[in-house]
């Protein structure tokens, strides 16, 4: 244990409770909390300023907490943000059992909506051509209904929830739920209106995502290798949903933006570490796979960020722009 010398005491317990209350913290957020805990924990009158709290303090408290809770299948995991590398810690439940399935504020319908959103992010909008791994407002809200496969093509949003069997949410509910996912820190919404999974959600759902989406594909028999829809960064080995990809479409190398600098400095060349193609840095994973396309930019120029044409339409335009190879995988499902 790194908090050598002193025993696990009330300050550790307070830190753990703070963590449970917040779910996820980065160092900046944890600092004032730790400073306050140190202040009340320390000798009378000795105040700990926020600036005196070091990352080593935080690490030692996280380690102590982990040591205490690992027995209960809980863990504080950390992961650097994919964008700016600031580390984020999150309290994660490492096993799912009937015990802990109570621990949600969401209804079953909302959870099934979340599943549809994840499917959309990692299947519908995550194709070999465009690994968006994000979903726009419009696309997300359209998923409000619990559609069976047969109805899947009929995504006209005219009907509310008059359909009988699958139920699902009303569009208003879907919008509200989506907002609450963002407020609770599961999703992040970008300026361009794309929802992505937050680092906290990635940490908590990592296992689920990998087993669900990286398993053998639906028609996996003909594709001999297993489908790897969610890839790891070639440099840091963490999941990647925002970053850059190798210009060669078949090549599986993906690298976070921030990781590229270090990696290519070490390699002394800006080539893909695997297929040696030149790394242009203009092929993206994440929403930029859409927003850097000519079609998107054109749409923006036209409408000044207002109502956009639907994503599907843009993608199909873009398919034509690129050397389009059939749109079968792109359109909704």
């Amino acid at each position, binding site marked *: *244990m790194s908090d050598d010398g002193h*025993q*696990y005491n*009330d*300050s550790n*317990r*307070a830190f*753990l*409770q*703070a963590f*449970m*209350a*917040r*779910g996820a913290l980065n160092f900046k957020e944890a600092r004032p*909390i730790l400073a*306050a*805990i140190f*202040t*009340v*924990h320390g000798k009378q009158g000795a105040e700990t300023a926020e600036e005196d709290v070091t990352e080593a303090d935080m690490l030692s408290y996280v380690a102590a907490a982990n*040591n*205490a*809770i690992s*027995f*209960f*299948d*809980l863990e504080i995991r950390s992961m650097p943000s994919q964008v700016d590398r600031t580390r984020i810690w*999150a*309290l*994660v*439940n490492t096993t799912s*059992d*009937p*015990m*802990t*399935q*109570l*621990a*949600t*504020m969401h209804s079953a319908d909302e959870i099934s909506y979340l599943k549809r959103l994840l499917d959309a992010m990692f299947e519908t909008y995550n194709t070999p051509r465009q690994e968006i791994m994000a979903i726009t407002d419009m696309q997300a809200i359209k998923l409000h209904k619990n559609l069976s496969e047969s109805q899947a093509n009929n995504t006209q949003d005219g009907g509310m929830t008059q359909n009988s069997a699958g139920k699902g949410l009303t569009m208003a509910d879907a919008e509200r739920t989506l907002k*609450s996912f963002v*407020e*609770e*820190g599961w999703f992040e919404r970008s300026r361009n209106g794309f929802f992505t999974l937050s680092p906290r959600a990635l940490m*908590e759902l990592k296992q689920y995502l990998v087993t669900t989406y990286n398993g053998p594909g639906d028609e996996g028999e003909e594709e001999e290798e297993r489908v790897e829809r969610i890839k790891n960064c070639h440099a840091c080995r963490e999941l990647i949903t925002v970053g850059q990809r190798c210009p060669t479409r078949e090549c599986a190398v993906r690298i976070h933006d921030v990781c590229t600098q270090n990696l290519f400095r070490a390699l002394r060349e800006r080539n893909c570490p695997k297929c040696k193609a030149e790394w242009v840095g203009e092929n993206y994973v994440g929403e930029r796979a859409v927003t850097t396309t000519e079609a998107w930019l054109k749409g923006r120029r036209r409408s000044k960020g207002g109502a956009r044409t639907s994503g599907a339409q843009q993608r199909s335009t873009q398919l034509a722009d690129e050397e389009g190879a059939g749109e079968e995988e792109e359109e909704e499902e």
Partner: protein
Amino acid sequence: MPLVRKRRAVEETLSDEESEATLPQRRQKQSNILSRQQQRPPIDDDQDDDDKNSDEAALGGDTAADDGATQGDSGLTTNQLVKKLVRLALACEFSRQPVRRADISTKVLGSYGRRFKQVFEEAQKQLRGKFGMEMAELPIREKVTISQRRAAQRTDKAATTSKAYVLTSILPPKYRSVLPPPQVPTAYLESSYVGLYTFLISVICLSGGSIAEAKLERYLERTNADQYTPVDKTEKLLQRLCKEGYLVKIKDSSGGEELVEYMVGPRGKVEVGTVGVAGLVKGVYRESEVGNLDARIKRSMGLNGVGKKGRNKEEQRRQTGEAGSGTRNVPSQRRNMEEGEASGVSDDDE
């Protein structure tokens, strides 16, 4: 991502001596657990062969050297049951459900029903030592209406305990004040909710333990919370409060017309309790401005019987106020002032 609400239900001011006496003991126990914890071998699934060792190492020889460790060979070890119970408690608290004895039996113990006491005590120890929390038993529902009392009399053996528990923090108050509000679902909603129910419970406590619906509505109207609150529509808020056990709604039609009253629910008693109410009142009145505040609060909540030294005016006012709580008495001037100030608090809370 479980969580526990930091509340101040542990009596801090009113029974200082008691907590002083128990705390050091508790500390002692915790450090015992922990020192052993560090030597504990990693928990594997193939524990069967070294069951006895790991049980004793993790549970602490002093208490758990009894039957649990020796029964371990029969399948699930006590350790695993403890783990399940702790996880259940954390999960229930997350959605503000009490942990019921029946749930523990079916979800945790299964066929090991006889080990409840041992598992429960060990889980308490782990919760205290590692999380700084413990399960507090909810008080049983009071039998208020005549029909309830009659029903209670008919049953031969009245339940003496509620057999339902909620998690509370046992950290010393100085730590609780620095913890951030829980972000479930968001820090704003959660703190509004805590503020609102603390206010409502205070109003009920200070009205003598129960309040007529009409009167509560009037308080809500004064605080501009009669239609809508930051959390939800007032109607839904009250429903949620009743569901989660902060309040109890009592309908009594025995006297002919239906009387609807609100009382403090079991969770409200545990989480807020008299200490929470006293805290809120102190926050409003400040010790310096109103002398003898502690005594007055106690008196208002009926904590010590009618004062022997003859009633002063203040007390009389309280008494009459309480007696008339159901009938919309014309409030005295002083009372008005108080309510005004109380509404100030709730505005802050919102």
